[in-house]
């Protein structure tokens, strides 16, 4: 044991990772503890408290459920591997999260070691529903410790829980903890150590309560007819009500003395239920909700929160993006100038550093977006946002939880697609992913800006703004329409519904928010970043080779014209010309075709590719590019770019699926090639038909 584990204490994080990804590589017997609990029970806080920085986030094989594994030092000095299970309400799975939680607890997953002990995290302020999962885990007959979390909240609400009587009733150790303050974590670890060697109580909840469930009113059983599933659940809750009455009566004895207002048929209602549940508590969270999901103020607050998220993404990130890409470009030029040979220089400057640059420009925006998402999620507002927006989205077959991912799509489709993991129903999640790229991402803005500014400037600022707005609206309309069609045809599956807990608000924790933002941003960097980078390299090679024959080298008026000729001679230029007959009916010439090919790396590459093809250089001299676009003519003297052509290209950018990194992320998130390929085909087909229709009808009506 000493070899591997002592190493971890002094090694840096990445080496520690290697240590627990292969726990048995040196025959080390590592003890594995699994953290289970309801969503919003504070599991992650306790996980962080146990493992500190020694943790790693990956995926369970074959599903997009996050697998969080960490290392923790037990009081006796040995290392414990801690697995943070996804939140589950029940072990009878209804969502992928619950499926995984159940499989890990039962030791059914080959990619995860089976648990030596289980820590069930229970929210003391929401004892009844949390104990439902416990009632199922207890029956698995494994060493179990209850971490009674949020004791402070329970006390503040006047429903303190007596841990000792809970322990007596459950027959397993119960340790009170306040996760976010780190209280009780050492005690929890000691209890786990003891539970390992203690005999496991062998009992079945159902046996202990079967007598009680028979006492259900006879007339009711006659009317409803109790099936085994209902009997099982009801017996568990009957047992829970009994346990809760016991351990809250002692702790909060005084409250039970208050005279409850018993309803007219109170005789048939459990006295505890009446006492506690008659009125929802007037605590802070409820007061916040009476504002944040108020029918007027709620919507205004929602618009404000989403608006500031947007403003931060665009205005806060902009200067950082500019500075970063300027910096990268500078280094690229500097590095290239020290290199021998044109090809090597160009590879470094226009291939590698340009590629890195086009990845880097997304980072500030993505990081800010993930920061907002993490804060919204950890504070509890995310489920309120879903509550507010569900009506709107359920009409087109989506889910309230689709809203935030779709909104993220206005920055970039990739974080949006990653954020769809919170949607439980597979059909609504897939539908959300499939329409997400219609949202106008920030990479489209340079394209829109160039074309609208160049070809619609004559119509005035108001018209230009109107066109921009219309492009955004068009994306939303198509997303809604396509979602509706898919949910009626391909993805008919009934939704999992909208049974959504509205958890107590809490102040977001820096450690959770920071970690979430970091792990998501680095996931973006590795998944999208590598794709964008590789495509940039490939595009560079395609437009650099083959070189113009030497004897033609001297005929060019200037460097720009030479570069344009090179571009037309290169593979990219030839490819553009090859596809020209296919895109001619849309109003595109081969140069636009080359631009659209370039856009597969990232949509904004369209602009720089056009600039190269037109020989205006890759610098940000958009005026030059605009002028040469306006002047560009076919050999027969017709103008290449008319407002109609510009509109057709704009429509193409609204509808087409070009961004290959999005395709890669969809593959990752849906676990196969089926959906990403489908997405690529259907969106581009839609774009082709749309542009064909627009250009053909348009040129007949307005004569081109």
């Amino acid at each position, binding site marked *: 044991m000493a070899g591997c584990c002592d190493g971890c204490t002094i090694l840096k994080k990445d080496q520690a990772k290697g240590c627990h990804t292969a726990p048995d590589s040196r025959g080390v017997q590592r003890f594995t503890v699994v953290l289970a609990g309801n969503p919003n029970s504070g599991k992650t806080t306790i996980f962080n408290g146990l493992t500190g920085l020694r943790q790693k986030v990956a995926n369970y094989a074959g599903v997009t459920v996050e697998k969080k594994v960490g290392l923790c030092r037990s009081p006796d000095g040995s290392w414990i591997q801690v697995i943070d299970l996804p939140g589950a309400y029940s072990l009878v799975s*209804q969502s992928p999260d619950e499926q995984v939680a159940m499989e890990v607890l039962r030791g059914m997953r080959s990619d995860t070691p089976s648990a030596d002990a289980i820590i069930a995290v229970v929210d003391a302020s929401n004892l009844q529903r949390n104990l439902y999962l416990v009632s199922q885990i207890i029956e698995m007959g494994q060493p179990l410790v209850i971490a009674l979390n949020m004791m402070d909240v329970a006390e503040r609400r006047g429903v303190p829980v007596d841990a000792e009587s809970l322990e007596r009733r459950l027959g397993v150790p119960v340790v009170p903890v306040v996760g976010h303050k780190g209280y009780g974590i050492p005690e929890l670890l000691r209890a786990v150590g003891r539970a390992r060697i203690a005999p496991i109580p062998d009992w079945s909840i159902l046996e202990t309560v079967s007598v009680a469930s028979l006492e259900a009113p006879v007339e009711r059983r006659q009317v409803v007819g109790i099936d085994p599933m209902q009997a099982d659940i009801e017996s568990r*809750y009957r047992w829970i009500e009994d346990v809760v009455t016991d351990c809250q009566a002692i702790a909060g004895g005084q409250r039970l003395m208050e005279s409850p207002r018993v*309803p007219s048929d109170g005789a048939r209602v459990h006295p505890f*239920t009446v006492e506690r549940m*008659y*009125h929802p508590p007037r605590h802070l969270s409820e007061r916040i909700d009476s504002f944040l*999901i108020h029918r007027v103020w709620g919507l205004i607050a929602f618009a404000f929160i989403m608006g500031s998220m947007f403003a931060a993404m665009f205005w806060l990130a902009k200067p950082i993006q500019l500075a970063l890409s300027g910096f990268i470009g500078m280094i690229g030029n500097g590095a290239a100038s020290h290199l021998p040979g044109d090809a090597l220089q160009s590879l470094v400057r226009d291939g590698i550093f340009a590629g890195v640059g086009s990845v880097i420009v997304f980072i500030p925006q993505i990081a800010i977006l993930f920061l907002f998402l993490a804060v919204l999620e950890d504070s509890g507002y995310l489920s309120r946002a879903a509550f507010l927006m*569900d009506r709107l989205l359920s009409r087109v077959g989506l889910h309230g939880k689709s809203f935030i991912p779709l909104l993220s799509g206005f920055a970039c489709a990739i974080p949006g697609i990653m954020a769809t993991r919170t949607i439980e129903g597979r059909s609504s999640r897939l539908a959300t992913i499939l329409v997400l790229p219609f949202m106008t991402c920030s990479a489209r803005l340079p394209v829109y800006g160039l074309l609208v500014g160049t070809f619609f400037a004559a119509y005035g600022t108001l018209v230009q703004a109107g066109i921009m707005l219309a492009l955004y609206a068009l994306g939303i309309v198509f997303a809604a329409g396509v979602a509706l069609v898919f949910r009626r045809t391909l993805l008919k599956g009934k939704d999992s519904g909208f*049974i959504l*807990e509205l958890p107590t608000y809490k102040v977001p924790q820096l450690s959770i928010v920071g970690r979430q933002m970091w792990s998501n941003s680095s996931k973006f960097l590795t998944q999208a970043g590598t794709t964008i980078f590789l495509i940039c390299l490939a595009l560079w090679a395609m437009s650099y080779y083959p070189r113009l024959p030497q004897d033609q080298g001297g005929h060019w008026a200037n460097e720009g014209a030479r570069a344009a000729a090179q571009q037309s001679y290169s593979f990219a230029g030839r490819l553009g010309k090859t596809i020209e007959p296919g895109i001619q009916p849309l109003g595109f010439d081969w140069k636009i075709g080359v631009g659209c090919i370039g856009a597969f790396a990232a949509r904004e590459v369209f602009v720089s590719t056009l600039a190269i093809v037109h020989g205006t250089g890759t610098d940000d001299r958009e005026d030059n590019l605009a002028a040469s676009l306006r002047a560009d003519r076919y050999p027969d003297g017709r103008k290449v770019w008319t407002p109609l052509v510009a509109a057709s290209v704009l429509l193409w950018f609204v509808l087409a699926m070009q961004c290959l990194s999005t395709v890669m992320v969809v593959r990752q998130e849906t676990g196969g090639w089926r959906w990403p390929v489908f997405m690529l085909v259907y969106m581009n087909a839609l774009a082709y038909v749309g542009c064909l229709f627009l250009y053909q009808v348009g040129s007949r009506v307005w004569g081109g």
Partner: protein
Amino acid sequence: MTLAVVESVHGASDLRRRLLEMGFCNRTIVTAIRRAPLGDPLEFFLRGYYVSLRKEEARCILVSVIPPPTSREEKANGAGPIVGGEE
């Protein structure tokens, strides 16, 4: 805010299981808190926590409405769907 006692839960098996598991069973008392600004879903309070359900899901839960002790109006005490039981 309307209070009601859960009488029974109906609907498709998956939905019914989830509703029962979330605590809509054993004649528990449920408080209807509010509707979302756009009319759907609805928010409920039961067993010490808040949960939201779409109307079509809430319709699967049959309840008896508890008349408020100080209520001026007389409310029927018969069983009806949780949505219909409101206002």
